[in-house]
């Protein structure tokens, strides 16, 4: 490995790579901690050119590489499965350009999601995707995973806000897809690069759409005796044709942890609460809030409170977005799951989660993007007890299987990563997966960029070389 390290150091300079085993520990996993593997080296390029040279060096030495942003992935997206080189984009963190008149910005991949939004605040704009991890995660990571967030219910997920990407392809060449101008004719490559989980190359620049800030908010807190009442309310709000800015549910267990951490004044005896926010222009907003309040009350809400100041709204969202952090108070380890069901199936899936938790003797709390049908059951355990780990995995899988059974998906925003590879054949046929492999072959034919991610490699029947064979005919 020494010659590779030397080569990489000659590209990025001293102080921009890590090879010491103790320091590599940080990079042995991301937010998904159940599987771990240390990379051989981590490099910190500062320019597109450096990324391209690193990738070429990896090719020359025949080692795999994997891009990494902030490492907040919850699906093992950053896990260096076979070792190799982790390319950290953490030092490419410049906001290169913000063009308010044309509503777009050009950013480097290491820019933290929230920085961009804060940067534009004085001009009344923001970057719409707002994952709960937005204080830490990078735009590059958002692009790779097609992140969502509480407000993507109304404003759309990351892919709806990405106009173009500059990508270092797995062979070290540099390509630009899309750009600040809409509708350039040709395939929407940007559209498939978003959400490709780092398997198509390294995103080194991104053109993002920027969105005008809402003028006003009405943030309501619905307090319910039971989870059922809360989920019925969600279904009915959407069914009534109202699309709130955000619609989030928190159950009793998570409320307890949050109250301890933030002292917001959450009702600890409530079965569940809903954060229901409408936003936009002032005109007509109160009427919308009233309609939502009426629906909540009709479905048994004990009380519907309205955040009466900006400070209160901010604190409420802070509590919501740091909910995962507060879970640490409940158990030494936890596994955040990510599944999706049709919205009308929310009451059903939450009852199932409860049943599955009992079956596996595992405590599960819920805090999630309810309006999208995107559930995040958090399974509590102690990773030092292998028996518990087994039960948590079994319970997770049963929940995800149920999501599939009712017509949903095993991931709404965290991605397949390494965690959910085994679910891909449950969602997709061998032919479907064959097409995905063909597409990957167009970008990453040697599969040396983020190998063993997203698509199953075992079961040779799937990994066909059909395209190559046909072309050779």
């Amino acid at each position, binding site marked *: 490995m020494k010659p590779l390290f030397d080569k990489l150091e000659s590209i990025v300079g001293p102080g921009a790579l890590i090879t010491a085993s103790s320091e590599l520990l940080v990079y042995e996993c991301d937010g998904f901690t159940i599987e771990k593997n240390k990379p051989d080296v981590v490099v910190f390029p500062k320019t597109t050119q450096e990324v391209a040279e690193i990738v070429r060096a990896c090719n020359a030495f025949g080692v795999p590489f994997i891009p990494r942003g902030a490492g907040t992935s919850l699906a093992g997206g950053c896990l260096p499965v076979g070792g190799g080189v982790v390319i950290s984009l953490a030092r490419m963190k410049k906001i290169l350009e913000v063009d308010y*008149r*044309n509503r777009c910005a050009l950013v480097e991949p290491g820019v933290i999601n929230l920085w961009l939004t804060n940067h534009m605040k004085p001009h009344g704009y923001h970057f719409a995707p707002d994952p709960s991890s937005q204080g830490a995660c990078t735009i590059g990571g958002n692009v790779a*995973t097609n992140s969502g967030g509480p407000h*993507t219910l109304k404003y*759309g997920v990351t*892919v709806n806000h990405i106009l173009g990407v500059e990508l270092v392809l797995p062979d070290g060449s540099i390509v630009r*897809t899309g*750009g*600040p*101008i*809409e*509708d*350039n*004719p*040709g*395939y*929407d*490559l940007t*559209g498939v690069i*978003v*959400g490709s989980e780092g398997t198509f190359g390294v995103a080194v620049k991104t053109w993002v759409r920027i969105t005008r800030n809402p003028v006003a908010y009405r943030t309501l807190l619905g307090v319910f005796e039971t989870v059922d009442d809360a989920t019925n309310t969600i*279904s009915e709000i*959407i*069914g009534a*044709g109202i*699309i709130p800015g955000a619609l989030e549910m928190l159950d009793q267990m998570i409320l307890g942890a949050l109250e301890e951490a933030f002292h917001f004044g959450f009702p600890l005896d409530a079965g569940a609460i809903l954060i229901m926010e409408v936003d936009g*222009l002032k*005109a*007509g907003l109160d009427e919308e809030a009233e309609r939502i309040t009426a629906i909540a009350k009709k479905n048994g809400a004990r009380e519907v409170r309205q955040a009466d100041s900006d400070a209160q709204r901010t604190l409420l969202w802070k509590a919501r977005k740091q909910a995962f952090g507060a879970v640490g108070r409940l158990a030494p380890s936890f596994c955040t799951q990510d599944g*999706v069901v*049709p*919205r*009308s199936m929310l009451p059903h899936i939450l009852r199932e989660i409860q049943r599955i938790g009992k079956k596996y003797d595992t405590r599960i709390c819920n805090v999630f*993007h309810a309006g999208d*049908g*995107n559930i995040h059951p958090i399974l509590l355990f102690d990773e030092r007890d292998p028996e518990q780990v087994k039960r948590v995995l079994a319970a997770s899988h049963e929940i995800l299987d149920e999501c599939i059974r009712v017509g949903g*998906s*095993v*991931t*709404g*925003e965290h*991605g*397949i990563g390494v965690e*959910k590879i085994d679910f*891909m054949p449950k*969602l*997709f*046929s061998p*032919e*479907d*997966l*064959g*097409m*995905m492999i*063909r597409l990957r072959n*167009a*970008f990453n034919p040697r599969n040396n960029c983020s190998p063993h991610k997203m698509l199953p490699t075992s079961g040779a029947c799937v990994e066909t070389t059909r*395209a190559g064979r*046909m*072309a050779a005919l």
Partner: protein
Amino acid sequence: MIQPKNTGELGMEVRKPASVEEAGEIIRRAAQARAAIFPFGNDSKRHIGFTPSKMGLRLNTLNLNRLVDYPARDMTVTVQAGISMKLLRGILAKEGQCLPVDDPCPDQSTLGGMLAVNCNGPRRFGWGTLRDYVIGISVINDEGKETKAGGRVVKNVAGYDFCKLHTGALGTLGLISQVTLKVRPKPESSAMAVIGLNQKDLEPALDLVHGTATRPVSIDILNQAAVRHLKPDSSNASKDWTLLIGFEHNEKAVAWQCETLMEEVRQGLGRETQVIPKGKDQAIWESLARFQAAPPADSQATFKINVAPAKVAAFATLIDETFPLCPVQAHAGSGILFGHVPGALPFAEVHRGIQSLLEKAKRSLGNLTILHCHEDWKNDLPVWGAPRDDLFLMRKVKESLDPMGLFNPGRFVDRI
């Protein structure tokens, strides 16, 4: 409408499968025979793109038109791709829902055709484009097998997003057989604000709308020729430009926005705004959507220019100067302009004008494409504009997904 002389696909044999299996079988056989497949619905978009490079079968999708699933409370709908947009709109309307994407050929389009061409209209500014609404897709591949991606839930990141890739691919990567769309509640109210402008007011007016306190869902401009073409009796036909700003929201919000905009325009431009209220505005939305596909009878070519929104005023003016009397429309907030080259110009002049507009668009990082022209002009006009930087990657994607060039060969960008 122009009747193309070189009929391209028209001479080919037509098949109209009654099921996905039958369509798959036709495709499998065509692949074996090294023939090509040209999918079509009602033929409203055949004029788009180059003349095919290969002979083959025309595959009509109109019998693949089933409503598969419409759980209205989940606000998603799954349909076969040959369904007519008119039918689909009717189905959604019964539940008070809609797909907020404008359809330039509302009486003829099939969903599959809309998708292949990536049809959009004025509302794209506020509601996004078609790609934003496609959450699941099934495509019959080059082996005649139906393959799917995405799903039926509104949020889903399992696997690569083929929905995006097929949208706007002009059917060159497979036959779209089934689609799941995310739909929206129909807005409670709407209105269109109309403002007549002199040439010198155009740019300041667009700047003003950019900074408005309101939230328009569409910002369009029409020149005099376009106004006359769409609505010969219009009172604004005497102005150089007509600015049309659309609102869709609840009643209170629409009313507030109309008033606010009126005041902004009065203060900023010293002009009066005419507000066309809900009900009466429908015809205007429709004609703004139709414009790109409805050239005047004698028009010889329709082109589209895409540039940064801030450049729209300049390019609109440029078109006006390049082709006098050319009807011009722009979706100003999105940087999209359309022009219908007026009749009677000799080809050389059309060619010179188009090339010069293309060069200027390129210099502004934009592009120009031809939506409609005589079939035998297609060899000389920049049908798909200037090639993009990522053409090599596009080709790799095509080679990987359709290695034999089975689907719509020759018609798309770079005759892919």
